[in-house]
C-alpha cells in the first residue's frame, strides 16, 4: 500500500520517465512531440497540477476544442442573451454562461438590470422551477458535449412525464468526433496524438474513438484527471508514438468501458438528432451537434421563441485560434490586459474549463 507521502515520489518518478521518453522521441524524430488534450477539464488539470509546466521543452501540450462555453459561437451567445428581452421569462443556465460576453453585454448584466436569470447546476432543476412558476416560461440554455447531452435528455424526459408545458430548452450542443475529424482534416496543427476526455468517453465508450487510429493513423489515450492519471496517459502516448503504433488505449478503466453508457446514449438519441452546429472560430460543421427531433418541438425554445440572428460585433479576441490549437493564450494581444477573468472579452477567459482562464489562473508569470 502506498502512503500519501509517496504520492509525490511516484509522480516525480513517472514525470522523469515521461521526460526520458520525450527525449528519445526528440532524438528519433528531430522535434518535440505534440499532443492535444481535447477536454477543457484536462486543460485546467494539466495547468493546476503543474504537469504542463514540468513538461515545458519536453512535450508540447495543445489545448483542444473541448470546453463547451468556448466553442459556442458569438451568434448563438447573442441569441441566448436576447432571450431575456421577452416578458414573463425565466432564463436558466450553467454558471459559466452568465459571464460570457455577447456583442452587447452578458446574462449577468441582464440579471443585474432585473431580468430573471438563474444559475442551476442541473437542467432538471430548471424543470422544477418551471413547475413552481406555471405562468412563466422557463428556458434552459443547453450547451455541452456528450457528457451533458444525456443530462439534457433527462430534463426533457422529466418535463414530458410531468407534462410541464412552460419548459423549453435552447440547444447548442457539440459532439467530439466531428470536431476531431475537422481538425485532422484541416491539418492546421501538427499532432502526434490525443489525450482523450475521460468524461465524454464514460458516455461514449472507448470504441467510439477507434476512428482516430483506423482512419487517421493517430495514437490516442483516454485519461483521468489526476496528475498521475495524466502522466501515465502521456507515457502511453509517447510509447505508442515511438513504436509508431496507432492505437486507442483506455487508461481510465475505472470509469470508461468499451461501449460506454448504453442507457445514456439511448436517451440522447431518443429526444435529439444530429444537426449542423456553428463552432467559434471554425464555422458550421455538418452533423456536429444535437438538437430536438421535430416530434419534441414543444420543448424546443428555438421553435417556441424564434430570435432573429444578427451579425455579431467583432473584437480582437482570438479564442477561435486558441480552441483550434493554433496559438497559446498569451499570444493574444488582449490576454491579461484588456481580457481577464473579471472583465472577460472571450469565452475562453470565462469558462472554468477555458484555456485562457487556465493560463491566467495557473500559468501566469508576472
Amino acid at each position, binding site marked *: 500500500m502506498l502512503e500519501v507521502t509517496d504520492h509525490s515520489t511516484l509522480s516525480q518518478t513517472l514525470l522523469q520517465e515521461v521526460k526520458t521518453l520525450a527525449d528519445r522521441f526528440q532524438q528519433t524524430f528531430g522535434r518535440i512531440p505534440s499532443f492535444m488534450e481535447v477536454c477543457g477539464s484536462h486543460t485546467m488539470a494539466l495547468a493546476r497540477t503543474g504537469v504542463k509546466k*514540468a513538461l515545458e521543452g519536453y512535450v508540447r501540450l495543445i489545448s483542444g476544442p473541448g470546453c463547451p462555453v468556448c466553442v459556442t459561437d458569438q451568434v448563438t451567445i447573442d441569441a441566448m442573451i436576447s432571450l431575456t428581452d421577452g416578458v414573463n421569462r425565466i432564463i436558466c443556465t450553467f454558471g459559466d454562461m452568465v459571464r460570457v460576453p455577447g456583442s452587447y453585454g452578458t446574462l449577468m448584466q441582464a440579471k443585474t438590470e432585473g431580468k430573471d436569470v438563474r444559475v442551476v447546476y442541473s437542467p432538471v432543476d430548471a424543470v422544477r422551477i418551471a413547475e413552481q412558476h406555471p405562468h412563466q416560461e422557463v428556458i434552459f440554455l443547453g450547451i455541452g458535449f456528450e457528457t451533458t447531452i444525456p443530462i439534457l435528455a433527462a430534463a426533457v424526459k422529466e418535463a414530458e412525464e410531468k407534462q410541464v408545458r412552460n419548459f423549453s430548452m435552447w440547444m447548442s450542443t457539440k459532439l467530439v468526433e466531428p470536431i476531431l475529424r475537422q481538425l485532422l482534416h484541416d491539418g492546421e496543427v501538427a499532432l502526434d496524438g490525443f489525450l482523450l476526455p475521460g468524461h465524454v468517453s464514460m458516455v461514449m465508450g472507448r470504441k467510439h474513438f477507434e476512428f482516430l487510429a483506423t482512419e487517421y493513423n493517430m495514437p490516442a489515450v483516454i485519461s483521468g484527471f489526476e496528475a498521475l492519471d495524466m502522466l501515465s496517459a502521456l507515457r502511453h502516448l509517447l510509447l505508442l508514438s515511438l513504436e509508431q503504433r496507432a492505437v486507442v488505449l483506455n487508461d481510465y478503466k475505472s470509469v470508461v468501458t468499451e461501449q460506454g453508457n448504453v442507457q445514456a446514449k439511448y436517451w440522447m438519441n431518443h429526444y435529439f438528432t444530429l444537426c449542423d452546429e456553428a463552432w467559434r472560430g471554425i464555422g458550421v460543421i455538418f452533423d456536429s451537434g444535437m438538437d430536438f427531433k421535430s416530434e419534441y418541438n414543444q420543448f424546443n425554445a428555438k421553435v417556441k421563441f424564434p430570435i432573429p440572428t444578427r451579425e455579431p460585433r467583432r473584437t480582437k479576441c482570438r479564442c477561435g485560434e486558441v480552441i483550434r490549437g493554433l496559438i497559446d493564450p498569451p499570444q493574444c494581444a488582449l490576454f491579461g490586459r484588456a481580457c481577464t477573468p473579471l472583465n472577460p472579452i472571450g469565452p475562453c477567459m470565462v469558462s472554468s474549463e477555458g484555456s485562457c482562464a487556465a493560463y491566467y*489562473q495557473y500559468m501566469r508569470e508576472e
Partner: protein
Amino acid sequence: MERITLAHGDGGELAHKLITDVFVSTFRNERHAKFDAATFALGTHELAVTTDSFVIKPIFFPGGNIGKLAVAGTINDLAVVGAIPKVLTCSFIIEEGFPIRHLKTVVQSMAEEAKKTNVAIVAGDTKVVERGSADGLYINTTGIGIISHPLERNMDEGDSVIVSGSVGDHGVAVLVARGELGLVSTIESDCTSLYPLVAKALEASQRIRLMRDPTRGGLATTLVEICEDFGVTIELEEECIPVKREVKGACELLGFDPLYLANEGKVVMIVPKEDEQAVLDALRSQPEGKDAAVIGTVRATNKGQLLLRTPLGTTRRLYRLTGLMLPRIC
C-alpha cells in the same frame, strides 16, 4: 451604468477593488486597517473592534446556523488580532413572516456560542422589513476585545505557515445544504469560535507573527493578502495542506478549488521556525486543531507573492479569488 454585482461580495478581487475605491478612499483614516478587526488605544487599554453582517443561505446548515456563525465569526476576527473577546452587540433584520420558532433557535445558538468564550451580548437592535425585502433573516454583530498578545507582524525568511485544520469544509457544507447541486454529503461546516484554540497557541509561543481566519476567498486569498500587505513571499506545499477527501471530491465534481473555499473555524498562523513544534502541539491538543499542519514557509521578505509547490516539484503563483461566484456563504 456600473452596478453592484454578486461578485462584489465574494471576498475576492472585485470586492477588494470596491473596498479600496469606494470605502477606504472616502473614510480616509491614518489607521489603514489590514485586518478584519481594528486595534486602537483607549486610555490605558489596547482594544480591538470588529463588525460583520451575516446573510448566509440557508439559515440552518450542517454544523451550525446563521446565529452561531455570527457570534463565532466576530469572536474569530477579534481572536486573530491577539485580543480576548469581551462584548458583542447584535442587530437583526427580519423578513415579515419569518417563524419566531426559528428565530428562537438562532438566538439560542448565539447565546451558547457566546457562553463558550465568556463573551457577553450587551446591546442589540431589531428591524422588520416587508415580505420580499429581505430573505428570512440577516444578522449584524459588532465585537470588542482587549488586546492581550500584541502580534509582532514582522516576518523573517524561514518562518513557518501553520493552518489549524482542513480547508474548504464550510464552503462545501453550505453549497451542498442549498440542495442546488444535487449532491449529498456528510461534510459539516467547521463554524466555531477560535478563541480557545488561539489562546492555547499564544500560550505556547510569545512570538506568533501573524494570524488570520481564512473565511470568504479561502486560504489562498487570505495568504495573498498577507503577502501583498506585508511584502513577503510565502511558498506553500500543496501536499501538506489538509483537505478532507469529501471536500476534494465535491471540488472535483463542481470545478472548485478547496484553497478558495470559505472556512469558518480555521486559523492560519505565521510563526518562527523554532516555535513551530510548540504551536503545532498546542493546536493539536484541542479538538478543533487536531489536524493542524505546517503548510509552507516564508521564503523572502520583499516580493509579495504566494507560491504553491505541486507534488511534481513545479511551482505556480496563486492569486486572489477571481470570478467564482458563491454568494451568501456567510
